[in-house]
């Protein structure tokens, strides 16, 4: 069956690896980016911060 055409939130995480002094993020769903270590670290921190804030926005969910 065809899945909804509107992009849905990803429940699968992307996978990051280090390669030749850079960070490669592959997935989810078509994401494929290469970042400097500094950009990757700042992106990672931003993701953690946003993740914590998003959990706070979900009624009844405890922060982890």
């Amino acid at each position, binding site marked *: 069956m065809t899945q909804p055409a509107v992009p849905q939130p990803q429940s699968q995480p992307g996978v990051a*690896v280090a*390669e*030749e002094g*850079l960070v*490669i993020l*592959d*997935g989810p*769903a*078509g*994401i*494929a980016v*290469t970042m400097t270590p500094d950009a990757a670290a700042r992106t990672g921190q931003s993701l953690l911060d946003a993740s914590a804030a998003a959990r706070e926005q979900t009624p009844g969910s405890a922060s982890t």
Partner: protein
Amino acid sequence: MFIDRFLRGRRGAQLDEAERARLEAAITEVRTFEPRARLVRAGERLTHSTLLIEGFLCRFIDDRRGLRQLVAFHVPGDFVDLHGYPLQTLDHGIATLTAATIASVPHEALAAIERDAPEMARKLWFATLLDAAIHRAWLFRLGRLDAVGRVAHFLCETNARLVLAGLSDGKRFALGLTQNDLAEICGLTNVHVNRVVRALREEHLCLFRASLVEIPDPQRLAARGQFDPAYLYIDERAAQALASSE
């Protein structure tokens, strides 16, 4: 003949002998270009369309900083800017990726075909629609697939197109592209493409080295890249030839 590969193996659109002769006779010039040569600039007024005889070309759009985004890849037999006849100018540039030989067909010859050979004109129209189908697959590849999938999809598509052109046996073909080209085509960095090429090799899906591509198991590579050749509109006979090579 220079136009032998044009629309070869395409469903309901192959040129008959008289049509081939007419198109061949319409060619006014055959030229060879070095790799990385710009053939057409975006916005330039066009009087000819370009048929690719040998080598590989790309279509591209530059961003404000002059950085290039590839938007199409062409193999021998493609009528690269047939759409330049009705449009008169292109919204993108055309350049060689490898050394390439091209034939020029004046727009006035295409106008004559449109005027007095409607069935042949329909086949030329088919060629531009095929381009559009390949563009849709390009969007799907970049928008939906992961890095390995993008490269796998592109190599499967290229293999199928080269089988039709008689330039691949279905498992092995010459592709004078660098990993940098592959990176541009698949919207990846060089480092990422390097990693993908290694992963494909380690999974025995594909060997990409120098100018040669080897695909030990085309079906597995197609599955990895979610590649379905339906959008290439291959006729039954050519499809069987493609399938038997897998």
